């Protein structure tokens, strides 16, 4: 039986949930087990890398017809789009109604042209962080390489100059300081996925940990 709270304590709905505006984001309750956070907490494995745009490159390779590497100027010349909505961290916070802009992964893949056998992607960051995703989670307008957060250059601690953005999955999938997307036929586990976290990480299914 699920233990209930002692009656003299009430779980208080976070202020931001009460003030949620349906105009941005979905405006309803957060995914199961999540709470709304007004700030933007920082979670990083190890020290925060310093990545200058002059030294930044993004490579898309593996099972593609054309392995391509963009430097900062070439990346900034690509067509841009914006995401507005909510993001969800596996550590329980969700951020309501935020925005990022950058380049849709669709734009990159249209140039690189995935081979038919490509089914998975291993994303790698400067510093060696990795995370794995099904290719299907990165296409059809669901994922970006984001260099802008709420109209400002993406701060270094949040992955600037550019991060992967996959807002429909827990945020560890949105690798900061993104350096490479490698397309694969077989799934290859990333950092947290090797360390007890779920392989797909759908917040609405509460896929936090291995086996959820």
């Amino acid at each position, binding site marked *: *039986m*699920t*233990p*209930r*709270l*002692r*009656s*003299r*304590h*009430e*779980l*208080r*709905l*976070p202020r931001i949930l009460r003030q949620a505006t349906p105009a941005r984001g979905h405006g309803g309750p957060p995914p*199961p*087990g999540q*709470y709304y*956070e*007004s*700030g*933007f*907490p*920082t*979670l*990083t*494995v*190890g*020290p*925060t890398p310093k990545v200058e745009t002059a030294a930044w490159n993004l490579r898309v390779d593996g099972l593609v017809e054309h392995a391509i590497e963009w430097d900062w100027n070439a990346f900034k010349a690509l067509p841009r789009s914006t995401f507005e909505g909510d993001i969800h961290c596996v*550590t*329980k916070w969700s951020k309501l109604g935020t925005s990022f802009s950058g380049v849709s992964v669709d734009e990159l893949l249209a140039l690189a042209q995935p081979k038919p056998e490509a089914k998975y992607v291993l994303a790698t960051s400067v*510093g*060696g962080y990795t995370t794995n995703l099904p290719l299907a989670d990165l296409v059809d307008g669901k994922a970006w390489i984001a260099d802008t957060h709420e109209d400002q250059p993406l701060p270094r*601690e949040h992955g600037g100059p550019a991060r992967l953005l996959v807002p429909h999955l827990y945020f560890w999938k949105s690798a900061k300081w993104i350096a490479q997307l490698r397309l694969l036929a077989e799934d290859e586990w990333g*950092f*947290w996925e*090797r*360390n*007890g976290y779920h392989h797909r990480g759908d917040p609405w299914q509460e896929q*936090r*940990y*291995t*086996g*959820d």
Partner: protein
Amino acid sequence: MTDATPPGAITWQVADVVAAWAESSTARTLRLHLPEPWTYLPGQHVDVRLTAPDGYQAQRSYSIGSSPADEGSIELTIQRLADGEVSPYLCDVLEVGDQIELRGPIGGYFVWRGERPVLLVGGGSGLVPLMSILRHLRRTAPDAPVRMIASVRTPGDLLYSGELGDDARLIYTRAGPPGWAEPPRRLRPEDIAAAAFDEGPAYVCGPTGFVDRAADLLLAAGYPADQILTERFGPT
């Protein structure tokens, strides 16, 4: 594949609160008996789930502070957040004999598997997983070199003050105890230099700003990035 997380699902269970005590002026330790016990590594955490009478649920993660050698129970130290939703209940309302739901152990990165020497750098309630490492090291590898740096706002905020060891390097950022020789200050390069080893990992846990500062100082002191293990919490 890690051995830190058991294969299969990490399932919820109902734990009994068997003891509870104040760990500082703003934190409380809960000793919990697990009806379905599991083994864990120092540094791992659990998820706690509370359910209101109307069914509304809230979950939070808390680090384990006890040594895995203490079989049969685990200890969580909960920092009371004034504006918190869950921590005031765990600190002020929950009583010995009550039950809470939890699941774990979680996390295979910020864990100690016997590496030595070990540098521990904690800010505020970031001392909790470091205490698990220190306690387990003392139990299982008492000869292993270990050094601790603890940064807290005031003496009343210091967790485990009787257990940190005489050689722990204490830093007070707002006010020191009466007669403390130096004014309040932040972590400095000389703190890291005095505690650094030539090899082995550094475990850094605390609020984001503290961890970022400590990690940068460790890099500057020559620690390789992959030997600086971090656990950050709190808003930026």
